[in-house]
C-alpha cells in the first residue's frame, strides 16, 4: 500500500541548489525560495500599486494605502510621535510576516514562518535591537525598567527577578507564538486531509471542515502578523518610555 505520510512532511526543507562555503551548508532551499518570493511580491505590491499616485485611489492603491495607514496608526498609538523613525522597520516586518503566512496557505507551498529558526531570528533581532535602543537612549537608567514606580522596597528583591525573567522570555514567546500558530494550523489541515482520503465517500464531512479551517487559517495569518507588529511596537515603546 502507499507509504505512511506524516502530517509533518510538509515542513521538510529540501535543497534546490546545493552550495557549500568553507564547510558550511548555505544551500538555496525551498525556504529561501519562498522568502525571495515573499520579498518580490511585497516590493511589487507596494511599488506597482502606488505607480499612478492618484488623488482618488484605485483598488490596488487603496490596498497599499490601507496597509500603510494601518501600521502607521498602530505605531502612532503605541509609541507616539517618536515612533515615526521605527515605522519603516515595523512596516517591513509586518508585510514580510503577513505575506509569508498568506503564501504558505497556497496548497503544496511552504510556510516560511512555520520554522522556529526563522521566527527566532526575527524575534531575537527585535529583542537585541530594542534592548540596545533602551541602553543607548537611557544608559544604565534603562535598568530601572525592571523596578516599576511605586513599589515598596521590601518587594523589590522578589519583583526584579520576576520582571527580568519575563523580559528575557520576550524573544522566546514572540518567536514560538508565530511558529506554533503556523505549525499547528498547517498540521491540522494535513491531518484532516488524511481523514478525507481515509473515509472515502463520507470524506465530504472532513472536506467541509477543511474549507472552514482554511477560513480560520487565513484569519490567523493576518492576526499573527498584526500581533507580531503590535508587540514589536509595544517593546519599542517600553524601551523609549521607561514606564510599564
Amino acid at each position, binding site marked *: 500500500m502507499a507509504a505512511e505520510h*506524516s502530517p*509533518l512532511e510538509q515542513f521538510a526543507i529540501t535543497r534546490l541548489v546545493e552550495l557549500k562555503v568553507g564547510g558550511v551548508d548555505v544551500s538555496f532551499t525551498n525556504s529561501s525560495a519562498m522568502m525571495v518570493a515573499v520579498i518580490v511580491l511585497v516590493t511589487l505590491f507596494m511599488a506597482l500599486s502606488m505607480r499612478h499616485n492618484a488623488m482618488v485611489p484605485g483598488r490596488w492603491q487603496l490596498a497599499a494605502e490601507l496597509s500603510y495607514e494601518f501600521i502607521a496608526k*498602530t505605531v502612532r498609538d503605541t509609541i507616539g510621535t517618536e515612533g515615526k523613525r521605527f515605522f519603516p522597520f515595523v512596516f517591513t516586518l509586518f508585510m514580510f510576516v503577513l505575506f509569508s503566512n498568506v503564501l504558505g496557505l497556497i496548497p503544496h507551498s511552504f510556510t516560511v514562518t512555520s520554522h522556529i529558526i526563522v521566527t527566532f531570528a526575527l524575534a531575537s533581532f527585535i529583542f537585541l535591537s530594542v534592548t540596545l535602543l533602551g541602553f543607548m537612549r537611557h544608559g544604565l537608567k534603562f535598568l530601572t525598567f525592571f523596578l516599576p514606580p511605586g513599589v515598596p522596597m521590601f518587594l523589590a528583591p522578589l519583583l526584579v527577578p520576576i520582571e527580568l525573567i519575563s523580559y528575557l522570555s520576550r524573544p522566546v*514567546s514572540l518567536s*514560538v*507564538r508565530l*511558529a*506554533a*500558530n503556523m*505549525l*499547528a494550523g498547517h*498540521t491540522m489541515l494535513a491531518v484532516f486531509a488524511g481523514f478525507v482520503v481515509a473515509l472515502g465517500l463520507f470524506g465530504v464531512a472532513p472536506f467541509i471542515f477543511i474549507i472552514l479551517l482554511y477560513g480560520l487559517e487565513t484569519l490567523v495569518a493576518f*492576526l*499573527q502578523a*498584526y*500581533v507580531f507588529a*503590535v*508587540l514589536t511596537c509595544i517593546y519599542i515603546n517600553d524601551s523609549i518610555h521607561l514606564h510599564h
Partner: protein
Amino acid sequence: MDVEAAKLIGAGLATIGVAGAGVGIGTIFGEYVAGGFRNPAAAPKVFGNVLLGFALVEAVALYALVMAFLILFG
C-alpha cells in the same frame, strides 16, 4: 513500557494544557461582549486590544501543543 507508548501518553497529557486557552479566550470575548452591551460606542475602539489579547492567550495554548508535538515526534 516502551518508548512509543510513553510518547503517546506524554503527548496526550501535554494536550490538557490547551484547556487554558478555552477559559482565556472565553473570558476575553465574554468581557468584550458584556462591555459592548454597557458602552456600545466604545466597542470598536477596544477591538484591537481584544485581538491582541486573543492572540496572546492562544499563544500559551500553542506552547502546550508544541510540547505535545515535540514529545510525539521528537
